[in-house]
């Protein structure tokens, strides 16, 4: 494997673990789903959930640490909005595996082609 690919995969590992961990919870996915429509105040965000404000706040903090949610303070209100970057990185991470195999299978194809020509030349 090319060193560049290796470094890329290692660099993304920690961030990705955080992204996946953040996405593994249904409440947090529901929060993201709401923020996808528009930004929201923390208090408004907590309303539809059947849990305490503190519990919702904890979930929000996990999403913030994963970089999926941004917090902006305007006056006395905290506004939350969605940040797409970590999701992009998650898809890039899986693409590195795909790129790795695409390249290997390309080599395999040339190898088989060369082999075939070699064999023909030998038999002639």
């Amino acid at each position, binding site marked *: *494997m*090319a*060193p560049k*690919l*290796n470094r890329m*995969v*290692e660099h993304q*590992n920690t961030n*990705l*673990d955080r992204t*996946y*961990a953040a*996405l*593994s919870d*249904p409440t947090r*996915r*529901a929060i*993201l*789903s709401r923020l*996808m429509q528009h930004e929201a105040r923390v208090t408004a965000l907590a309303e539809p959930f059947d849990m305490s404000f503190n519990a919702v706040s904890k979930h929000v903090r996990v999403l913030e640490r994963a970089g999926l949610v941004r917090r902006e303070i305007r006056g006395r209100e905290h506004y939350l909005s969605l940040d*797409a970057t970590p*999701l*992009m990185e*998650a*898809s*890039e991470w*899986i*693409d*590195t*595996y*795909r790129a*790795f*195999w*695409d*390249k*290997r*299978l390309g*080599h*395999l*194809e*040339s*190898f*088989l*082609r060369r*082999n*075939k020509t070699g064999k023909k030349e030998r038999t002639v």
Partner: protein
Amino acid sequence: MGEIHAATQAEIRIRKLLPASPQEVFDAWTDPESLKVWFCPGDTMRTEAELDLRVGGQYRIVMHAEKTDYIHTGEYCEILPAQRLVFTWRSTMTHNEDTLVTVELYPRGDQTELVLIHERLPSADVAASYNAGWLTIVEKFAAYLR
């Protein structure tokens, strides 16, 4: 947004049509001398390949590049000549966690269709727990990005 969708996959699946018979393709995967030739990336200077081709047997491929060595190891799980090869795969790329690679071969005239499935990718346990709700999120998200 296909890229976003890919984030929910716990595995990758690649198809490729190859100009050889299934047996020839199978041999290229299981003969160490052949593997050394085609499996190395461009900057590899020398490759060592030791394969113990039997179910439960280990393989070890070491690629010496200019600055570092890349070590790939694993164990053969299924060996069906000219049809199917299943092995575990562990390297720095998989953060030294065991992943699973399946290579399936199908005759297509004088060619072979190869299907490669790489699963149990790191973080895949979490990815696999994504439910339908999460897929909906991805779709909404894709629409949002458009």
